[in-house]
């Protein structure tokens, strides 16, 4: 009897400790970024392009990287969504779910999920060399889309699989086809989860540096077409923190803070926008 209680308390202690380690690390990362970055944050930083000598401590801002990251992140997430949703829905048991093709698809996606992002960057780079285009917005978007796809599809697949079979049967029982059931019932029921998948992929995409290093390039200007090189916040952080000047390093933390806020704002905004639909979800 005593042993069981001890077991219970010990494991509960472990869970609490683990939760604190996780929560604590997150808190530590946030605090460092905020403490080091907030003093360097200014209006000019988010509204101006870098001027000459910016990376040596000169005047200007990182508007180029903010706009670039938004273009890259939103572009890649939109492109990934167009590809990921149909695949995730096709992985339902009514289509290829439990077949050999379905299992193979899931396995490939799990492997792709584990591929380091620099590999996507290198792959994208080779394709671009082959096509004869230089580092540009389009190249970055494609590399990031490849990076985001496995995450988005698998996350969506998991939520779509959570839709109760009885709910689908209720729709089929009224004579609905697979497509009608999928579009009108499954997607609505899974909407909050699908959104989470989207944000997960967006967060991974907008924060990634390695895959866009060769494919998107870096520039102090704003891009005017898909074929212009484009700056990004992760690379702005990377370049600024690598300089020997303390004030520029501080700007790196400020850039990281902007990246954090960007992801935060977009997450909260999209949650608010879809809240209207969430109340219909059947529990």
């Amino acid at each position, binding site marked *: 009897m005593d042993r069981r209680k001890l077991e219970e308390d010990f494991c509960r202690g472990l869970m609490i400790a683990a939760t604190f380690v996780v929560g604590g690390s997150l808190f530590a990362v946030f605090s460092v970024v905020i403490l080091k970055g907030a003093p360097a944050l200014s209006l000019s930083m988010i509204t101006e392009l870098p001027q000459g000598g910016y990376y040596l401590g000169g005047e200007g801002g990182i508007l180029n990287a903010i706009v670039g990251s938004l273009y890259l992140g939103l572009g890649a997430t939109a492109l990934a969504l167009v590809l990921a949703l149909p695949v995730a829905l096709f992985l339902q048991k009514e289509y290829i779910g439990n077949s050999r093709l379905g299992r193979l698809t899931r396995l490939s996606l799990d492997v792709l999920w584990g591929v380091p992002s620099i590999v996507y960057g290198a792959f994208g780079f080779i394709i671009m060399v082959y096509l004869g285009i230089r580092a540009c917005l389009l190249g970055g978007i494609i590399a990031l889309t490849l990076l985001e796809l496995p995450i988005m599809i698998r996350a969506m697949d998991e939520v779509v699989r959570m839709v109760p079979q009885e709910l689908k049967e*209720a729709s089929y*029982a009224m*004579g*609905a086809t697979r497509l009608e059931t999928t579009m009108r019932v499954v997607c609505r029921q899974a909407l909050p989860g699908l959104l989470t998948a989207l944000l997960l992929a967006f967060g991974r995409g907008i924060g990634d540096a390695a895959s866009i290093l060769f494919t998107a390039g870096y520039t102090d200007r704003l891009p005017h077409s898909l074929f212009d090189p484009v700056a990004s916040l992760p690379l702005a952080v990377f370049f600024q923190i690598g300089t020997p000047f303390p004030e520029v390093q501080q700007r790196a933390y400020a850039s990281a803070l902007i990246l954090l806020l960007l992801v935060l704002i977009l997450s909260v905004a999209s949650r608010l926008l879809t809240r209207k639909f969430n109340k219909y*979800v*059947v529990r």
Partner: protein
Amino acid sequence: MSVFKPHISVHKLNVFYGSHQSLRDITVDIPEKQITAIIGPSGCGKTTLLKCLNRLIDLTDGVRLSGQVLIGGVDIYNDKNIDATCIRKRMGMLCQKPFPLPMSIYDNVTYGLKIHGVKGKKRLDAAVERYLTMAGLWEEVRDRLESPASRLSAGQQQRLCLARSLAVEPEALLGDEPTSALDPISAQHIEKTFRELRKDYSIVIVTHILRQARRLADYVIFLYLGELIECGPAEDVFGRPKELKTQAYIRGEIS
């Protein structure tokens, strides 16, 4: 055996899940515009038989089936011109646990209508009122048709599911233990509605509650371990069961 006009005829139906045989050589006629109760201990194939009647069984993994199910004389499995979706439209279904669709009360009722091409707000509005009234839910929800169906109580949800099924104008209603997840009052509501609907629809319910079968059924089918043991008018099966197994089941000796 009394003579009646069969609506659904099952002929030598065998169903296998993988290597397990769930139904063996079932041959039975289900009468038109009466309430038929399928009774039997759990795991005897009641739900499987019911799902065969609207081809919902097709959705189960690894299922194999032989034999015939005739609805209004047409073989719904082997006739080339038959589409599963149009069979399912004709056979309304009520599940064990109510599953409202993830949308408003109004949209739940119009869901089936819309997918079958009914348009126009006036027609849809009229249908919503008509079928919610038939299911005995109209008075309770008329002021909040736009609120999410998931906020209704379980009993109300089941009546909404009934209204939703009725809206596509089926010719029969199938109920898979439709009251077992409900409180007694809601269960009575559903039973009352079934009795009222009997004059227009053939109703088939699966139930493990013998008293419910006695209260509702005109015709009874008793299954045991995938085999049809006895079927006939309710008064015969309950009053003078022929088979020993039926007698034992009705006395509560096997369950």
